[in-house]
């Protein structure tokens, strides 16, 4: 059965333009202190500061472009970057990022995220709004050699506006359809030429788009806020310091999952997600003569609670709560230098981290669940002695403590030989993780016996007291090499490159499977069902990949055309896949899929045909398939890997004009189109989402210190699905958001 989407109207590019393109509402002030801000950017530190001169596929989106797209979080750049897909579904805990066929819906991410040099270790914290984003860089392909674990698909680096570059007040207020409101305030101040600080806060409220038929309320309501305190201090000509302290709070409904059979979003138990995060990142740079050292120390904490009506039906099967409290400490020390008149550049580093996670994850069985999943099974096995549970609700409790520790050493060397540039690097990575669990349950039931008269008498009572503990250890040691060669084309045309890189994603523990393990344990005590071997289901192995890529960065027509193209092939071993187990189970598990491969290409073109007009196009193609995957019941060899879009497409035209008369200083018109798909939803490729497009547009008018923007997203109202899953034999999807329009007011005083 195809879950199809209609194609909207044909996208048309047409504009007239007068003045220069790409200027933001308020131009940035140059750095009069001469501060090398790139040295406080961990990506710029480890890569070439000019990313187009490095052998990597990268997309950089600046502040103006982010404002044109009305993007304040990671999900907003999905599809804008070729082969990057970040579906919007569930809640803010679900930050599933797919790049070139690699991705993850649970546990460890396949794409790393740095925000102001803070490497976010917990994917649960990836989705949050950020005020005053300066730039978003997306490096595609494995970045494991320099950035380590969980950057197998790439790395996203977000930098916020620096108070060294801009001073004043920035105020933003926004309102849109669906009672979608945002506001932010930022104060940026430079006390001395070498010391500046900023404090910004943001707030958002979403009334929601999707209604729960059960109680008539909007499900995807959200209330969120965050603060950020950024300090830049040039202590001396050689010493720089940056500290960023950020916190956020979130209260969200979420999970508007539609039951395919009825076409309704209809469930009777509460679903919500609450989250508190606080992060601090301290970057210290020392510039020697021909060398520099950077130390980046971060402390991050997340405290969240996800509670779900696990069956997503108007029946009382069970609910799940997952509370996590995680604290992590990271340290990254990088030393880099040059020799031989700059022909040889080297970089060496040490990375260490420790994180401690406490998790409580009770599953509460309710009346329908007790009846259909427990009592019925048991009574079918022995109808002459049926049972009745003591209560119509009981919890299966699971508590986990997961400390994880890792250290790594890495090195990269680059050598320039005229037009040829060679680079090689390696990372040695050791990680150990431990899982201590405590699963417990205290319940019981009555056994009845059928008398010849047909009447049931009490036979006996069974107490079920489960109190299991366990302790598992996992240790992983791996090495991650990379090698590249880049050739500068003549006439400053650009370059071509080839790279070979190994990627790595950590193994982990299937904590969500414990509810299933405990349920099976309970059934086993009752005399039915087989017990799981905890050790065999609890863990999953690391995932490895070899990435082969050729590409080019081109610039011609006097810089009016900039293009990037790349072709890649990824050979992945033990790819981690999220699966819902067979039968009437609900816990998702991570399993290693054997072997997969992914092949494809990307092309991005920016063209300025005339002053004031920017044409932007980005297309990505990925064919990701299983080479070997047999889960014991099915052989998926040759099938397309689920949740990975075959195509991503982004087309945009931006027109800017500056009228010579009148109050308005600049007009900016933006029309854009995002296309995604085909996406298969399951391993046997029987469910899919066809290719669909969304049309967006915005009109901005900028006065002296004020900017007003009218914007629209999915203006043709394309209906599509962002997610599909199957649970207990039932199929669910989440619809994409409907059309949205809104207005944004920006007020900057500098």
């Amino acid at each position, binding site marked *: 059965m195809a879950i199809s989407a209609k194609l909207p109207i044909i996208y048309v590019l047409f504009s007239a333009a007068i003045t220069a393109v790409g200027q933001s509402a308020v131009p940035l002030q140059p750095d009069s202190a001469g501060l090398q801000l790139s040295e406080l950017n961990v990506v710029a530190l480890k890569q070439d500061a000019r990313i187009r001169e490095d052998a990597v596929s990268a997309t950089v989106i600046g502040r103006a472009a982010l404002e044109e797209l009305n993007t304040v979080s990671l999900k907003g750049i999905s599809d804008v970057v070729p082969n990057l897909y970040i579906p919007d579904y569930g809640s803010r805990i679900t930050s599933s990022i797919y790049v070139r066929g690699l991705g993850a819906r649970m546990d460890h991410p396949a794409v790393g995220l740095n925000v102001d040099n803070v490497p976010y270790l917990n994917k649960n914290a990836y989705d949050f709004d950020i005020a005053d984003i300066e730039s978003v860089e997306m490096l595609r392909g494995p970045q494991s050699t320099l950035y380590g674990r969980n950057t197998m698909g790439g790395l996203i680096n977000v930098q916020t506006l620096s108070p060294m570059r801009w001073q004043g007040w920035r105020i933003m207020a926004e309102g849109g359809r669906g009672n979608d409101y945002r506001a932010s305030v930022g104060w940026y101040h430079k006390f001395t030429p070498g010391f500046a600080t900023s404090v910004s806060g943001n707030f958002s409220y979403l009334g929601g788009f999707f209604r729960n038929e059960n109680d008539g309320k909007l499900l995807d309501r959200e209330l969120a806020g965050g603060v950020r305190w950024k300090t830049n201090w040039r202590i001396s000509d050689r010493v720089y310091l940056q500290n960023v302290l950020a916190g956020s709070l979130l209260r969200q409904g979420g999970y508007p999952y539609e039951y395919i059979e009825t076409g309704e979003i209809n469930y009777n138990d509460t679903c919500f997600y609450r989250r508190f995060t606080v992060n601090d990142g301290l970057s210290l740079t020392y510039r020697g003569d021909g060398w520099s050292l950077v130390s980046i120390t971060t402390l991050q904490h997340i405290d969240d609670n996800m509670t779900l009506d696990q069956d997503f039906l108007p029946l009382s099967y069970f609910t799940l709560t997952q509370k996590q409290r995680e604290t992590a400490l990271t340290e990254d020390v990088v030393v880099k230098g040059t020799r031989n008149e700059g022909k040889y550049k080297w970089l060496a580093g040490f990375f260490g981290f420790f994180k401690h996670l406490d998790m409580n994850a009770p599953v509460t069985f309710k009346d329908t669940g007790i009846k259909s999943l427990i009592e019925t*099974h*048991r009574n*079918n*096995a*022995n*109808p*002459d*002695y049926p049972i009745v549970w003591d209560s119509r609700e009981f919890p299966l409790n699971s508590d986990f403590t997961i400390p994880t520790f890792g250290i790594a050493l890495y090195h990269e060397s680059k050598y320039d030989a005229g037009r040829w540039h060679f680079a090689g690097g390696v990372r040695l990575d050791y990680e150990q993780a431990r899982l201590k669990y405590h699963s417990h349950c205290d319940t*019981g039931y009555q*056994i009845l016996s059928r008398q010849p008269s047909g009447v049931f008498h009490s*036979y*006996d*009572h*069974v*107490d*079920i007291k489960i109190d299991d503990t366990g302790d598992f250890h996992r240790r992983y040691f791996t090495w991650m090499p990379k090698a590249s060669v880049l050739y500068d084309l003549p006439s400053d045309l650009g370059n071509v490159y080839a790279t070979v890189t190994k990627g790595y994603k950590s193994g982990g523990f299937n904590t969500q499977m414990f509810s299933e393990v405990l349920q099976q344990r309970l*059934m*086993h*005590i*009752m*005399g*039915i*069902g*087989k*017990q799981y071997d905890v050790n065999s289901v609890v863990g999953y192995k690391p995932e490895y990949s070899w990435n082969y890529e050729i590409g080019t960065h081109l610039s011609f027509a006097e810089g009016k055309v900039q293009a990037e193209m790349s072709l890649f092939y990824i050979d992945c071993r033990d790819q981690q896949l999220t699966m819902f187990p067979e039968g009437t189970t609900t816990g998702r598990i991570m399993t290693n899929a054997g072997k997969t491969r992914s092949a494809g290409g990307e092309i991005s073109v920016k063209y300025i045909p005339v002053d004031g007009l920017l044409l932007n196009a980005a297309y990505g193609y990925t064919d990701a398939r299983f080479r070997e995957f047999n889960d014991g019941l099915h052989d998926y060899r040759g099938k397309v890997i689920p949740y990975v879009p075959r195509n991503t497409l982004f087309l945009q035209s931006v027109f800017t004009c500056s009228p010579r008369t009148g109050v308005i200083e600049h007009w900016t018109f933006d029309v854009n189109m995002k296309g995604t798909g085909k996406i298969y939803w399951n391993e046997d490729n029987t469910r899919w989402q066809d290719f669909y497009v969304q049309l967006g547009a915005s009109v901005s008018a900028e006065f002296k210190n004020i900017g007003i923007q009218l914007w629209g997203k999915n203006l043709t109202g394309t209906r599509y699905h962002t997610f599909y899953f199957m649970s207990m034999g039932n199929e669910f999807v989440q619809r994409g958001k409907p059309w949205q329009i809104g207005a944004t007011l920006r007020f900057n005083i500098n």
Partner: protein
Amino acid sequence: MKKLIFAAAGAALVSLASCSDNNSVSTMSIPVTTYSMITNLVDGGDPVVAGTLYKFNLDMMTGTATVGGELPLSTDNKVTFVTNNLTCAIGTYTFEESYREVIKMESMKAGTASNKEDLINFKCDLTQLAYFPKEIQGLPEFSYPTYLRYAVMNFNLGQNYLVRTFWPDMTFRGTTTTSYPASDGSLKTFTNKDVQYRIVMNLKEKKATVILYDVKLAEEMPQTISNIVLSNLDLGFSSSGIYVSGSNVVPSVYEGGVATPNSKYTFDSFQCDMTGDLTTATMRYKVAGSYSGHFSGSYILKVASNED
């Protein structure tokens, strides 16, 4: 995967009972309790079954051992024996996520008993490679015979007697094949290697309890039954071996320690035969008038002789 590692004699024998009473530190004495079935090959009568204490004296320096014991040939006739020095083959095997030791002894003529009869075709494994049953609340606890778990021993005493050891609580693993009528009337078969069979003998009462673990008799069966207990079956000993049988047995299923009768799985017939060296068993049964089951397996993991 079984892996054979020949360890140094002293290093392998880590679970021995005591050192030798003599002053040499290279010898050890191991008492092994087991049960022996002594079959009179001449008169064909019921075998004698008795608990037996065998004493193994091992000399690690020479790699040899002697075995001694007392055997009741009848109610008023006992013989004692001590074998000659038998060459030992010592091995360590991987078994169920851990290592287990095996000491093998074999001799065509191992010595002479007190009644002047020769000990012929003597074979003995001191082994830890035994399958243990799963824990089920309420079911009897499993008993372990000795430090090295099992003495799997058989030999002839002259031409008249066959001596074989066994243990009265054994769990068999192997292959169960069930045939049953499908909904269209055809006969379907289902093969299952997960079912385990535990035979618990009451030697005094000549009764046995059979416990089946993880029972799934057909592909269409919606759930696995974690335990089915057949109580009060007939236990018998014959010249060929040990048998357990019963008919029209309504089993119990233990749930949370409570034994609940379950007539849905009534065993119309059950027959178990342990023959040969008594480590293997074949079973046949019929359940609920429809399911015909056949099992073949062993309670000891057998190591192929070329791995010695």
